[in-house]
């Protein structure tokens, strides 16, 4: 199994230099993306086969590369197999989408070589079985994605996004490097050796914090999120989908691998830290999303929200595992993994939708769009499915994973720790708020850009996207529905992962009648997505056919009513900023220090009135800006060293030598 996976990664790596040659050919991008599609499908099937095989022995391999005394170790176990499926399902969808979308690329030479390399990097992270290969693959993934972020480098905003991203990625890798340094103390870099070693409680605690910083900066946990909404939208849309839908999952994998697998039994305060970060991340992420006008930026912020939900599930799993309640830990962990899978599906779908809109109109600003449901009906339908799924509404898949998380929260009064007893209900409240905000956010996104009347000429002359892009979007939309109506299959497929990580599994689901899911016992809770879907579909069609047959089925077209004052000007519609104004007023006045400054002209003046909205990012101002100021100040001071005479440099070198010799002598 592992051999197939590694050969596929090797093919992806070989495709990277081929990308340079192909980028000048007319059909080059098509060939490259088709090759990527085949390889990622192979990897996805490999992972799925491993996950579904009931015996599933971990298969390992060692390659003679990397550190000379260590070699590069690779291992395919249940956790790797699951993430292999997630990564390559997203990768295959992105490649299929890019078969059509990639032909619009202005500078394919800046995208094609890096795209397969980026896929190879993500796959290697998931397969690595020693710290050195893991870190090298992690950094490779970061750098190739950085190259893709700055592929449209003539836009100064993208360059800034790339700069911030590079800084944060280096910070994250540094934190992970330190974490592995602490872990390797006395054990070495091989994951098997680390697993067998028993670090002290203090060392394990330090590792958890470092991993939370390292993986957290990659997934955008608040307050380490600042780079994500800049970098993810800057890349070409299929890469944005990969970064948001897939790369964040690779970082979740890193967190799970180290904290659940490599470290010994958890301590209760770990879960407290994770929950305290996860809950606010969920709420703040989507609240930020509600303040944005750029479609892709809204989606990037919503990624932060979903990662918050995943980390809340992981935090709950840690808490239950620490207290020995394995069977609830399995529920919380499965919920988190299910959300990882679901989010990869609908976030990729939504980014592809944004890409289709961008390709057809050249606009990312919602306030210049509108009415696309008439001109891009198929894209509009697929995006609608994505919006419903991500808003956690039944019968789609987002609801199932949130529902399972809520069920785990409802079991947490059994935890003995007082700190957790106070935090978990608050986190539950934050998740509920996040779910409501998410629905508001996607009503806004869909309502402003796809419904209503076009707000600009480009929106009025939009056209449907190509058939490959549509195929990718419809495949993902179908998977969203399928995962929502038969979630029991997925829960059962996740059983080996949950068994390996928390030592217990959720009850077997697929044998239950009508494919109901029952996380604990039927007397506690049950949900049947299939029946909900069937009931809604049946009663809706029954109502429609009954009314059409018995009452009336006539339709007349007329101008809009609008209380008797219809205005042909499309500016009369609610804008994206206007739509979120009530929410901004209720929640944003504290969190974003949001203010509205209305400026009225004097009574006789014909000047128009102006309304200025100020929304500040307090986290950026309080955390990032001071650090940037300090570094800027320090570099200004050190800068004089650059302009010394040769004598002074020689003196400096000499005194440095003396100091070093003194240090060595002591």
């Amino acid at each position, binding site marked *: 199994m592992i051999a197939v996976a590694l050969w596929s990664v090797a093919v992806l790596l070989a495709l990277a230099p081929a990308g340079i040659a192909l980028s000048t050919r007319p059909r080059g991008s098509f060939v490259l993306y088709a090759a990527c599609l085949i390889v990622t499908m192979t990897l996805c099937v490999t992972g799925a086969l491993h996950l579904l095989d009931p015996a599933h022995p971990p298969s390992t391999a060692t390659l003679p590369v990397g550190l000379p005394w260590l070699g590069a170790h690779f291992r395919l176990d249940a956790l790797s197999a699951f993430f292999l499926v997630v990564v390559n399902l997203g990768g295959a969808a992105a490649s299929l989408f890019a078969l059509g979308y990639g032909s619009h690329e202005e500078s394919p030479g800046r995208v094609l070589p890096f795209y397969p390399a980026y896929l190879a990097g993500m796959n290697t992270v998931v397969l690595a079985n020693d710290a050195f290969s893991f870190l090298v693959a992690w950094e490779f993934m970061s750098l190739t994605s950085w190259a893709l972020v700055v592929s449209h480098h003539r836009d100064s905003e993208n360059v800034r996004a790339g700069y911030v991203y590079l800084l944060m990625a280096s910070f994250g890798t540094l934190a992970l490097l330190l974490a592995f340094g602490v872990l390797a103390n006395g054990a070495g870099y091989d994951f098997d050796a680390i697993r067998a070693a028993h670090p002290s409680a203090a060392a394990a605690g330090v590792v958890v914090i470092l991993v939370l910083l390292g993986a957290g900066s990659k997934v955008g946990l608040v307050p380490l999120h600042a780079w994500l909404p800049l970098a993810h939208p800057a890349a070409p849309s299929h890469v944005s989908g990969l970064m948001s839908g897939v790369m964040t999952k690779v970082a979740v994998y890193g967190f799970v691998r180290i904290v659940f697998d490599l470290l010994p039994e958890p301590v209760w305060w770990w879960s407290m830290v994770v929950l305290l970060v996860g809950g606010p991340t969920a709420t703040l992420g989507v609240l930020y999303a509600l303040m944005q006008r750029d479609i892709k930026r809204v989606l990037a912020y919503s990624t932060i929200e979903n990662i918050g939900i995943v980390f809340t599930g992981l935090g709950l799993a840690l808490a239950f595992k620490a207290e020995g309640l394995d069977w609830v830990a399995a529920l919380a962990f499965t919920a988190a993994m299910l959300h990882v899978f679901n989010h990869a599906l609908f976030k990729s779908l939504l980014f592809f939708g944004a890409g289709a809109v961008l390709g057809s109109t050249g606009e990312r600003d919602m306030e210049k769009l509108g009415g696309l449901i008439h001109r891009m009906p198929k894209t509009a339908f697929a995006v609608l499915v994505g919006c*419903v799924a991500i808003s956690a509404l039944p019968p789609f898949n987002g609801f199932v994973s949130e529902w399972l998380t809520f069920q785990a929260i409802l079991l947490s009064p059994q935890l003995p720790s007082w700190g957790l007893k106070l935090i978990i209900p608050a986190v539950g409240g934050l998740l509920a708020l996040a779910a409501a905000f998410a629905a508001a956010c996607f009503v806004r996104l869909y309502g402003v850009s796809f419904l209503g009347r076009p707000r600009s000429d480009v929106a009025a002359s939009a056209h449907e996207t190509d058939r490959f892009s549509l195929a990718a979007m419809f495949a993902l939309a179908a998977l969203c529905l399928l995962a929502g109506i038969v979630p029991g299959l997925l829960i059962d497929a996740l059983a080996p992962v949950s068994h390996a990580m928390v030592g217990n599994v959720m009850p077997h689901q697929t044998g239950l009648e009508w494919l109901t899911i029952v996380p604990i016992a039927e007397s506690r809770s049950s949900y049947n997505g299939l029946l909900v879907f069937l009931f809604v579909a049946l009663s809706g069609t029954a109502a429609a056919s009954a009314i059409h047959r018995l009452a009336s089925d006539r339709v007349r077209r007329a101008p809009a009513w*609008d209380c008797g004052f219809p205005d042909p000007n499309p500016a009369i519609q609610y804008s994206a900023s206007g739509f979120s104004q*009530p929410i901004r007023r209720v929640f944003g006045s504290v969190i974003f220090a949001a203010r509205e400054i209305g400026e009225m002209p004097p009574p006789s003046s014909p000047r128009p009135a102006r309304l200025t909205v100020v929304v500040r990012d307090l986290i950026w101002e309080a955390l990032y800006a001071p650090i940037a100021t300090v570094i800027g100040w320090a570099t200004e001071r050190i800068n004089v060293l650059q302009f010394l005479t040769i004598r002074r440099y020689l003196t400096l070198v000499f005194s440095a030598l003396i100091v070093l010799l003194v240090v060595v002598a002591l």
Partner: protein
Amino acid sequence: MTALRDFLLQGAQMLLVLLLAPLLTGFVRKVKARLLRRRGPPLLQPYRDLVRLMRKDVVLAHNASWLFRVIPYLMFAGTWVAASLVPTFGSGLLFSWTADLIAIIALLGSARFFQALAGMDVGTAFGGIGSSREVMIATLAEPAILMTVFSVAMIAGSTQLSYVAEFMGSDAVGLRVSLGMAFVALIIVALAENARIPVDNPATHLELTMVHEAMVLEYSGRHLALVDLSSQLKLLLYVSLIACVFLPWGAAPAEVGPERLAFGALLYLGKLTVFGFLLALFETSIAKMRVFRIPDFLGAALMLALLATLLRFVSGGM
């Protein structure tokens, strides 16, 4: 034989909520009118309105999309399914395990999601104002009701409504502070969700602060009839929910004989009457709030529900 009986009971429940919903609305309107010393429309007027609307042509705005025409059916189907899953005269019906309380709330959330989209579809200012305010209200009402569900579920040890009703009807409950807080929170949320005074005014059109009516302004004919029927079903659902959780007496388990079920149905009608009367009384004795006072009102519900949940956690849950 039992399978057929279970099936029939579930069907009876679906039909019952569908048939009773307009009656409840008519009753509330009648009582409100009588409290204002008006005579008011007859009790059956909502049925007549529905039939008349269904027979009329649909007048559709020129740029209304296919989504605009599908949404009334989606809203109706979602609300109807949700309403048929809340126990009324009997608990533990055939499909009661299809969706628990959280899923029922989420189904209503789906209906609201689509309704808000419908407000944005034609591209008018009124539709936008309605949708924008509706989602603002929902961002407070939804967490509040979820926290209420949490506290109730932790007391009953289940989110499954049939089991909750059974537990609440038993002696094991006693008088609990958290239940009281959850009750008040649920009432506030129910008022907001059903667009009742003081949050919204169901009787008027053309008022600057209107929310629900603004969203559905462009609907006519059979579409409007379905939208109206959905909101009537939603009111019935919330009344049934409050009755089922806080006054569960009389809701018979499905296995018992027909006379107990008939008794349950009679008692259910009694509960509807009492709640309808109280709602009308409350609405006539209070003024509508301006729109930015609503967050305070709903925020109180959210805080109460959160406190109730916290209390359950601290006192050991289960």
